[in-house]
Each structure stands twice: as structure tokens, then as C-alpha cells.
């Protein structure tokens, strides 16, 4: 299959080290795969290091042709670098593609890259561009395209460019642009990335949804405006909030294999009850995500269920720029009052595992086990009163969507049990998203990331674009820099333990649980399995023969 990498590296010193750790039980199979394929090993080579057969080949081959309708929000498109939803990536994935694809089993495989290699300390990556790929305007896809996209990703002057945070050391802090000599075009099919410090998150960064590859001359544009891409499909109709329809592009020779003739994304709003009504009316074939009680309902009407355990969660977070949440004692009191296992039960129907109020999940390779959190409602109230905020009224704002709503209800109920005054405010999506970063006390859904350090870089480093807690701690930032450069899971875990501790001590946010994610599809749909990062890879989808 075209999407799996042909072996380039039989082995890598660091990968062998990971293999030893795996055999010693220090790494799970999933973690081992994430890290060794990120270094440039093919999934097959990585499996062979630990003496297993690859599981990735199990993807079925669907029949050619057919139409599929997918329930998913259809949002206004923009410059891919500034995408802020997985839905953005999904809806354009058939048109503009990615260098690397993150697979369900945690491994990476090449898409527009045929392969990549990292040097021993992960400071230099050699990216090998897939030959024979063309843009649908007839231009050849070359190393120049890849280099131009890297340069654009590093441009911090573009408002909302979250790729800059993913590029880490490749961005020169003074100029806010790509570092001189950081991106080198070696020849037509080879790009070399030189980093000042070791960075293990580069490959996961290239696979993330804002990393869609644009034509070298069209960077910074909305892909809908010109429709130029390497993918097999073209957009026929795009109506924000209603639907997006794409069909196989007859004027373009696709480098890979795509099965469906037509794919339609249907926006049915944010109410899962409306999705279910539409499913019963036969209006779509596959959900983006199924949540809460609807997991059982969809199964009950005969749809196939697919699930995956992830580091996805809902953070119920105070914003530290707003009183009284600027007072650490207030935040500690809130965290102390909330029993997370109850939140898991009420918010998620128990579909997941209990969190620990720090944003590193047990399935992350560098996760460190900390002493269990203490829940003491009486002590929480005493702490709040001691801080002088005993009569504070906490307004907890959430989206009217099921998951975050029930989670916030559970958190609010726990706080009330402890004697605190809580007002709940439930806003519809259209209102909520206008202001979501600025609510003093609110909840946000966070998706899964491949490594523990990634989410800390994105959401908790001082001043980064998605830092909605307004958490700012010099020691934390410095330790995070340190952790970003440590390849070895055990060594990094020591730094990580402290990072996790800081999050708990400073009571940054409530991280109540780690979610299992679910998706349902009509029997007969192939390769529609739930993805830990909500990806819908339209080139794999199809209908059974």
C-alpha cells in the first residue's frame, strides 16, 4: 500500500535503546512505535526490533468507487497554518496532504515524504521527498515545496500560526522566523532540517492537522480560493455550517490510491441528539465522534462501533488573569474539592480513566507516577475561607454539547458539595467559541498528542497562543525546554515528574479524566476507525466490496 513507508533505516541507535526499554517493560508497545518511527524507522522495521509482526498491514482494501457522507462540523476555511480544529484538517485532507501520517497504532508513515532519518541525537533530520508526486495544477512536487512550507510554519508574525510552536528550535527567537541554515534543500528530493537542540517532536508536528502542505507559491492562502493540492479530490461545493462535498479530481493523476468517488461532510450542529435523529433518517454514514450516552444508542440501532484510548481530555480551567483565580489558594481549594472519579462517572459515563490534574497521560512515554491527589471537601472550604474568598461566586461557563457540559455540571456539583457557591452558564457553540479563551472559569476539550511534552509546549508554556489558563511559571518553562531535548524516556521522566508536580502545586487546571474516543459507522464502511487525533483520512475510506 502506498501509505506505508518502505524501510529506509533498518535500525537506529536510539531505536535500539527504545527496544531494550520495551523489552525491559519500561516502554509500552505503542510508545516504542511512536518514538522509533519518529526517528525514521519504518513501522515494519520498528516492529522487527522488538520481534513482532507489524499490525498496520491490517487495513482492509475497500472496493473502488462509491459515495460516503460524514457527519462533521463544516467550518470556514483559512490558511492551513492557522487551522485550529481537527475538522479543518479532515475536510481538506483529500485536497492538501501531509508529509507524514500518524496511524491509529501510534506509528508514523510517510505520505508526501517517502521516508526520513534522524541523526543520533535528533538534531538533524533528513527528509526524503516522495518522487512522482504532482500538484493538480501540473507542477511537480519537489523539495522546494517542502522547504517553503517549513519556512512558512516558522513565521511567528502570522496571527494564529500554531505551527510555529510545533517547530520549536527551528524558529529563531529574535527574528521570529526560521533559523538561518535550519532548512536546507539538498537536492530536488531531499530536505535537511538542522535544529540547535535535540527535538523529538518534529515528526509528530509534521503529522498534525495544521501541517497541510501547500504549493510553494500559494502559502498563506485559503486552499478553497484556488483548489491547488496534491490530493486525489477536489472541492465541488463548500457551504460553511451546512456541508462540504468533494469528488475525485478527473484532471489529476494521484500518486497514491483513493477509493471513494465522492465524499460529503454534513454539518448538523453541536447537538448529538440532532446527529442521532439524522442517523436514524439515514442522512449520513459515519460520525466524526460519538459521545456520552449516544455511544450506546448508535450501537443499539446497528451501527458499528470503533474506539481508541487516548490522551484526550476536557480541562476545566480557571484563567489566572482573572480574580479570584489569580490566587493560587483559591485554585487549590477548587481542585481539592473535586473528586475526579465522580467527574469521570458523571461527565463521561465512565468511558475513560481517572486523571490527576496535570496534563500528562499514563500512555505518554514520559509519564511519571505521582502520589494520588487528596480530595478533602472540608479542607477545601477552609482553604478558600483562609484565602478570603469564602463567599466568592464561581461562574463556570461551558459549551452546550454534552461532554463538556456534563463534565462541568459534575465539577460544579462537587464544588457545591464542599460549600462553595457556583453558577453554571451553558452557552451554544456560536456564542461560546467567540470568547472561549477569555472566560474566567471554563472548560475546553483537548485532543490527544503523541508525546507528553507536546501538549505542555502548546498549552502551558508562558504566553503561547493556546495558553488559556494564563499559566506563567519560569521554572516550568525552563524545565520544559530541558525535557524537550531529552531523548531517553527514563531521563525525561525525571524532569517530567517535576513538571507534573508544578502543575498540581500551582493548581493550573482540573484534568478530570483521559477519554476513550468513539466513532460509529454504518455496516459496510471500511477503514473508518476512530483515530486518536480525530483524523479522517479520506484516502483510506471506502465501502466494502
Amino acid at each position: 500500500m502506498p501509505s506505508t513507508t518502505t524501510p529506509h533505516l533498518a535500525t537506529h541507535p536510539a531505536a535500539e535503546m527504545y527496544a531494550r526499554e520495551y523489552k525491559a517493560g519500561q516502554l509500552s508497545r505503542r510508545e516504542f512505535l511512536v518514538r522509533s518511527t519518529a526517528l525514521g524507522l519504518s513501522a515494519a522495521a520498528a516492529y522487527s526490533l522488538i520481534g513482532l509482526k507489524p499490525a498496520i498491514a491490517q487495513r482492509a482494501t475497500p472496493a473502488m468507487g462509491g459515495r460516503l457522507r460524514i457527519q462533521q462540523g463544516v467550518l470556514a476555511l483559512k490558511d492551513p497554518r492557522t487551522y485550529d480544529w481537527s475538522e479543518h484538517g479532515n475536510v481538506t485532507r483529500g485536497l492538501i496532504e501531509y508529509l507524514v501520517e500518524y496511524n491509529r497504532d501510534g506509528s508514523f508513515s510517510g505520505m508526501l515524504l517517502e521516508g526520513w532519518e534522524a541523526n543520533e541525537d535528533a538534531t538533524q533530520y533528513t527528509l526524503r521527498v516522495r518522487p512522482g508526486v504532482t500538484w493538480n495544477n501540473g507542477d511537480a512536487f519537489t523539495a522546494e515545496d517542502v522547504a517553503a512550507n517549513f519556512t512558512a510554519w516558522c513565521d511567528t508574525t502570522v496571527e494564529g500560526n500554531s505551527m510555529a510552536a510545533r517547530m520549536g528550535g527551528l524558529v529563531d527567537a529574535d527574528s521570529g522566523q526560521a533559523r538561518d541554515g535550519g532548512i536546507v534543500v539538498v537536492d530536488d528530493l531531499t530536505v535537511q532540517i538542522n535544529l540547535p537542540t535535540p527535538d523529538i517532536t518534529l515528526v509528530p508536528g509534521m503529522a498534525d492537522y495544521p501541517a497541510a502542505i501547500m504549493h510553494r507559491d500559494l502559502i498563506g492562502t485559503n486552499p478553497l480560493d484556488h483548489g491547488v493540492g496534491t490530493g486525489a479530490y477536489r472541492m465541488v461545493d463548500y457551504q460553511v455550517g451546512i456541508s462540504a462535498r468533494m469528488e475525485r479530481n478527473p484532471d489529476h493523476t494521484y500518486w497514491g490510491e483513493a477509493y471513494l468517488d465522492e465524499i460529503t461532510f454534513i454539518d448538523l450542529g453541536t447537538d448529538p441528539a440532532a446527529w442521532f435523529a439524522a442517523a436514524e433518517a439515514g442522512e449520513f454514514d459515519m460520525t466524526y465522534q460519538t459521545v456520552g450516552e449516544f455511544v450506546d444508542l448508535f450501537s443499539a440501532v446497528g451501527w458499528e462501533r470503533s474506539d481508541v484510548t487516548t490522551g484526550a481530555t476536557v480541562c476545566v480551567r480557571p484563567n489566572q488573569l482573572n480574580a479570584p483565580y489569580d490566587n493560587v489558594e483559591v485554585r487549590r481549594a477548587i481542585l481539592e474539592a473535586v473528586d475526579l472519579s465522580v467527574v469521570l462517572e458523571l461527565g463521561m459515563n465512565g468511558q475513560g480513566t481517572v486523571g490527576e490534574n496535570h496534563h500528562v497521560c499514563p500512555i505518554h512515554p514520559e509519564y511519571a507516577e505521582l502520589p494520588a491527589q487528596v480530595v478533602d471537601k472540608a479542607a477545601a472550604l477552609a482553604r478558600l475561607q483562609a484565602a478570603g474568598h469564602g463567599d466568592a461566586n464561581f461562574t463556570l461557563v461551558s459549551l452546550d454539547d454534552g461532554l463538556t457540559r456534563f463534565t462541568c455540571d459534575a465539577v460544579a456539583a462537587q464544588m457545591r458539595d464542599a460549600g462553595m457557591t457556583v453558577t453554571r452558564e451553558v452557552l451554544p457553540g456560536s456564542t461560546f467559541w467567540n470568547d472561549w479563551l477569555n472566560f474566567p472559569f471554563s472548560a475546553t476539550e483537548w485532543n490527544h498528542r503523541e508525546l507528553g511534552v507536546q501538549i505542555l509546549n502548546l498549552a502551558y508554556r508562558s504566553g503561547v497562543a493556546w495558553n488559556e489558563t494564563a499559566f506563567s511559571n519560569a521554572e516550568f518553562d525552563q524545565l520544559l525546554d530541558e525535557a524537550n531535548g531529552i531523548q531517553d524516556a527514563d531521563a525525561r521522566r525525571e524532569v517530567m515528574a517535576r513538571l507534573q508536580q508544578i502543575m498540581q502545586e500551582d493548581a493550573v487546571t482540573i484534568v478530570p479524566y483521559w477519554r476513550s474516543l468513539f466513532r460509529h459507522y454504518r455496516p459496510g464502511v471500511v477503514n473508518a476507525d476512530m483515530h486518536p487525533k480525530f483524523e479522517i483520512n479520506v484516502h483510506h475510506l471506502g465501502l466494502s466490496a
Partner: protein
Amino acid sequence: MALFILRRVGVMALTALCLTFVVFFLTNLAPNLEKLAKTQGNARMSDAEVISWLDRNGYGGPLVVRYGEWLGVVPGWLREDPINGEWRGRCITRGQNPEGAPRYCGLLQGDLGYSTVSAAEVSSIIGGRLQLTGILMFWAFAVMVPSALLVGVLAGMREGSRTDRTLSTLSIATTATPEYVSGVIFIVLLASSQVGLSPLLVEWGWLEGGTLFFGSARSAMDNVTFWNFTLPVMTIALYGMGYIARMTRASMAEVMTAQYIRTARLKGVSFRNIVLKHALRNALIAPFTVIMLQFPWLLTGVVIVETLFNYNGFGWTLVQAASNNDIELLLACSIVAVLVVLVTQLISDIGYVFLNPRIRIS
């Protein structure tokens, strides 16, 4: 007559002007503009950035001037980006040279503006949405009017009879049930495979899996069928039906007590002929006005029904525009609403003249 129509059109233009100004004023209140800037630009913009964004995108000037731009009586705004020298303006696409572009582009020039929530021209959106709502309204009227008249006439021809009491009770019940209640009841009873009628029908073997009717009208946007359109149409129609039936009944009952009906009976005309030939035409004058009045009522009805059944017509668009503070789309919706109300009233007034010779216009 021509003068009457002309005066009505003048009133309509004045009403539209007032209404759009009120909508413009409300959507341009500072917090609403800030909300717009944060959705369109970046959710984490500082207050200074919000002001600069608003200024850069033409929301900076005095309210009346911007309203004038929208109307097309004031030249559209034009600004040169101080950093890269790129021109931006109301009447030009981004980066286009302002020379050669029109200076005015507002309602009077036929330009409805740009919808921020849909990222498209308002004119390209509103037409298709109105068409969808038109289809829904057509079927709602096609069900509502004949059945309401039938029920009203049957109830009114023998006032106080058992038929009258039964039909009147039904009419009051349907008109007292708002759309958001009847819609949900319909979905639960008829469009769920778990509860209501559908599982029973499946059990009896009358239905092969699935549901009797569909609880979502999304597929009706492409292809209207009996199964996907019945529930939204019935939800709208039932509400108006009760009301029209009550009006028809009252009118019919009154006509039936008139002297000429008694005379006809005394002459030995059959009851059937009295109702059909003598009473019906006179009894329908009052309901005609009520029916025309139902158009504006339906506009509010479709807001609820289209949202409930996920049918992306005019009502749904109005909800989306309002909740996202999409200024120019909301203004266009207001104009459409004013047009619908006043045009139907105009038809109602003129039609009344033809139905009732005692009425003279002017």
C-alpha cells in the same frame, strides 16, 4: 388603486429603513463588534488589537456613515495598509487596485454585502436559503389552508353541534401547542426507532427496521419525500391550522344566522346547497385576511422548525446570523422579513376589495 399601491410601497421602504437601522445599531454595539473581531480575527486579541482590527476592516467610522455605506449613499471605505501598501476596501477584493472599482456599493447598488459567518457574499447565500424555506412554506400552506377551511366550515355550519364541539376542541389544542413542543412530540412518537410508534410497527412486521418518519429534514434539502418532510410540514401547519379553523368557524357561524340563509331554507333549498352555494363565499372573506396574516407568523415558525429539523433555510440562517453577529446577513434577513410582511398585507388588502364589494380603497 395605483396611488394606494404606491403609498404602500413607500410605507414599506420606510419600515425597511427603520428596521435595518435598528438592526444595524444593535449589531454595531461595542461588545457585538468585539465579538465579531474575535471570531473573525483571533480569539486572544487584546483590546488594542480589537480596535485596530475593527479599524482595518471598516468597522471604525461613525455608525451613521457606515450605515450610509451599507445603504450605498456614502462611498465605501478604502484603506491602504501602511506595512505592505495593499489596498483594502468595502468595494474591492483584497489586494485589488482601487482604481476602476465602484465607489459606492450598498443596498441601492444591489450589493447586500459579505456574510462573515458563511464566508461568502450575502446575495449568494440568501437566495438559496429562501428557496428552501419557500418549499417548506408551500407545503405547509398546502396542508394547512384546505384542512383548516374544511374543519372551520364543518364546525361552523351547525353551531353547537357535536361535530362543532369536537373540531373546535381539536383546533384550540393544536393552536395552543407551540412548534417547539409539537415538533419534539412528533419526533418522539413517529421518528425514533427506540420509542413511540416505529418499534411497534417493526414488531408487527409493517415496517422493515428504521423509523416511520424522519426526525431530520436535512435530506429534504436535496430531495423532498413524504417521509422526510411530513414532520416539519405538520409541525408548522398544525399550529396555524387551529387558528384559521377557529376564524373560519366564527365567520361561518355568523353567516349561517344571516337573513338570506333563512330565506333560502324557507324556500326549500337543500342544506348542502345552502352551505356550498350561499354561505361559503361570504364566510371565506374573514379567513382570507387571517390566512395572509399567517405568512409573517410562519416566518417565526420556520425559525424554530428549521433549527429543530436541521433544515438549512431562511429561519436557520437567521438564527446562525444572529448568534454569530453576522451584521450584513442579519440586515438582509430583516429586509426579506419586511418584504414578506408588507407584500402579503398588500395582497390581503387588495384581495379583500375583490372579495367584498362593500370595501373601497382610497
